[in-house]
């Protein structure tokens, strides 16, 4: 007998990525040879390496997770649903470092297996050399000659388009969608990559190195000869202008005057208060530097910008978990002020993914629709502001966006 395990309800190998939020899965018999009854009891478990990812299971979309799952599977090919998630604290280190096995419960014979990855956004300072190199390689290829797909992302974040994304409640939802779009494009190059974050309230000795995000020298960033970011180009200009201000060393010191994670989470339990983080720590983290990252119009020319914003998004995610703020219908989860400009109301579609141009939207919409995912269906080609809130599918399972942070639990 053989069974097929479908991760994220897909037979596609590219869908075999999970996070802390449960992924809907199916198991079905594809070869009933040897089966003697209408249904066979199957034991599903995860097999991990000592340091790699670990998965857990449950039968339905609620209830406790466990290390293994027993279920009866009809031999007529009918699928049986189950859910798999990464065990919090045990993300993968490489693609396919966890194997989900299905065994005949009566004989313990292996009847099906798939390799999956617990793909999680991690602290950039803690990545393994392998994770670091894969991420840097994917990013450099996305930028390719400054003319690759990255050019769209650079052109999405400019002075002209900034009112779509800044200075109003949609700041956090817009940037969440923006990062997700970029991450999916990186994953199209290397599916094992997840966007890491730069904790600007901590020193990052492993991030600001020649082999990773470079070392500033007289205002420009130097890279090692093996680092593909040495070929970084934007707007036709080679390299990255970035230098820490006022004798700050980001490798050994947290960002000066940037408020800490604890202070950020304590800004308030209501979204209107929490979104004050757009000033400090977000804006302050930007302006600790000289160079591209210091201002809206040029910030996206520096790849560090995306790691900075990944941390901003992580802080929002952490605040959401702390205060239960995933439900767009709950007033405290967002700032639904009637005076919000277009693009900042929960029901509004977000530029540029909606393709709308002309006042009050910007004159062009670079990049087209949101990149699709083989793992999840949300947020769709043209996300709305509300699409960004329930990123783990805590309120509606199908709202899950397919990413998680290493230190933000699901439920």
């Amino acid at each position: 007998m053989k069974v097929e395990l479908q991760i994220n309800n897909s037979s596609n190998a590219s869908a075999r990525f999970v996070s802390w939020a449960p992924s809907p899965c199916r198991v079905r018999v594809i070869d009933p040879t040897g089966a003697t009854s209408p249904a066979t009891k199957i034991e599903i478990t995860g097999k991990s390496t000592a340091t790699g990812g670990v998965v857990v299971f449950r039968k339905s979309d609620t209830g406790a997770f466990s290390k293994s799952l027993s279920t009866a599977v009809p031999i007529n090919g009918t699928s049986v649903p189950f859910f798999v998630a990464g065990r919090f604290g045990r993300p993968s280190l490489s693609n396919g470092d966890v194997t989900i096995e299905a065994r005949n419960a009566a004989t313990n014979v292996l009847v099906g297996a798939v390799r999956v990855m617990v793909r999680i956004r991690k602290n950039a300072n803690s990545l393994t050399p392998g994770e670091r190199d894969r991420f840097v390689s994917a990013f450099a290829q996305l930028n390719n000659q400054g003319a690759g797909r990255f050019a769209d992302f650079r052109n999405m974040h400019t002075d002209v388009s900034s009112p779509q994304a800044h200075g109003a409640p949609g700041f956090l939802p817009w940037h969440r969608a923006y990062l997700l779009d970029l991450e999916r494009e990186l994953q199209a190059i290397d599916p094992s990559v997840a966007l890491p974050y730069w904790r600007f309230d901590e020193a990052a000795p492993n991030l600001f190195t020649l082999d990773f995000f470079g070392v500033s020298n007289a205002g420009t960033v130097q890279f090692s000869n093996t680092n593909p970011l040495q070929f970084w180009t934007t707007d036709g200009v080679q390299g990255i202008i970035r230098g820490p201000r006022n004798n700050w060393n980001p490798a050994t010191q947290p960002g000066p005057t940037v408020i800490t994670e604890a202070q950020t989470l304590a800004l308030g339990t209501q979204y209107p208060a929490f979104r004050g983080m757009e000033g400090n720590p977000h804006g302050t983290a930007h302006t600790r530097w000289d160079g591209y990252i210091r201002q809206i119009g040029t910030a996206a020319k520096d790849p560090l910008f995306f790691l900075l914003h990944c941390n901003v998004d992580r802080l929002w995610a952490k605040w959401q978990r702390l205060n239960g703020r995933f439900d767009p219908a709950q007033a405290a989860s967002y700032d639904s002020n009637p005076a919000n400009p277009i693009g900042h109301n929960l029901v509004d579609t977000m530029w540029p993914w909606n393709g709308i141009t002309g006042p009050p939207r910007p004159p062009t919409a670079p990049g087209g629709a949101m990149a699709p995912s083989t793992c999840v269906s949300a947020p769709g080609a043209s996300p709305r502001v509300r699409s960004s809130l329930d990123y783990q599918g805590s309120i509606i399972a199908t709202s899950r966006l397919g990413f998680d942070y290493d230190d933000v639990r699901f439920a």
Partner: protein
Amino acid sequence: MTTKKKAAKSSKSTGKSKPGAMRSTRAAMSVATNAHGTVKERVAALAEVPLAVCESDKDLQAVLNVVRNKEEAVEVRLAAMDTLATAAFSVIAFESCRKDYIATLREVAVDPDPQIRESALGLLAGLKDGFAQKKLLDGLKNPDKALVPPEKALQLLSYDVHAESYAVARDIVSNPPSTDARREALRLLAADATSAPLFEKLLRDKDELREVRQISASALHALKPEKLQEHAREMLLDTSEYEDIQATSLTALTQFGDDEAVGKDKVLLNSVDRLSNKAKSARYKKSARQFVSKYAK
């Protein structure tokens, strides 16, 4: 109080105000604009008020005055400029402040203090400000008028490259005032299609600075990627070539090369295989091994 006196007071600061400490915006603004406060306390307070300047013209003007006031400590003026730069991220609320903000930056772009000038010109250059661009170009053409060092001026001009900048950059490459200025001039010229032959020449010149050769490889990748691939191959076959430049070549081929063509190139694969055994640097050995394992399949 003079700048020096304030700096001295700063060193004796009790540090009562912790950076980012949660206090009311009013209280923070009061400390930020109090000319009798310590530098440390005021810098910390200024980091707390970027949103306040968007909401109150009085607060905006108070912070702008700190930026403009030559009697203030430089650290406080720089922190005030950072507060405004942070506030500028709240683009909708900041719109009404923008005119005064830019006028102030232009005013202090010619400030007696070099740090103030460089910070203001950095912000203006990011906004593609014509006033700043003219000042930067004038300084490069006539060093007596320079507001910032030439390498910084070139960096800032690269935010919005114009034909006039190319001409100045070419002059600096030919007759550089410093190695830093030459490096920045080359970075700027990477946007100039007519400079591709210059980068080919620099890339292959073994007497050239390695940093310049690395920049030339990157520039060529942007201007004529097929030329970089050709040169990268030749440099990997050249046993007298420097290992670090060979590593850059290897990275170019691995990341951006034609996989099919590279995979069929047995001469190249053999050469890289030798590098994977003989390279002095463990990092380059590893890079060569990864190349061989990728393409020797």
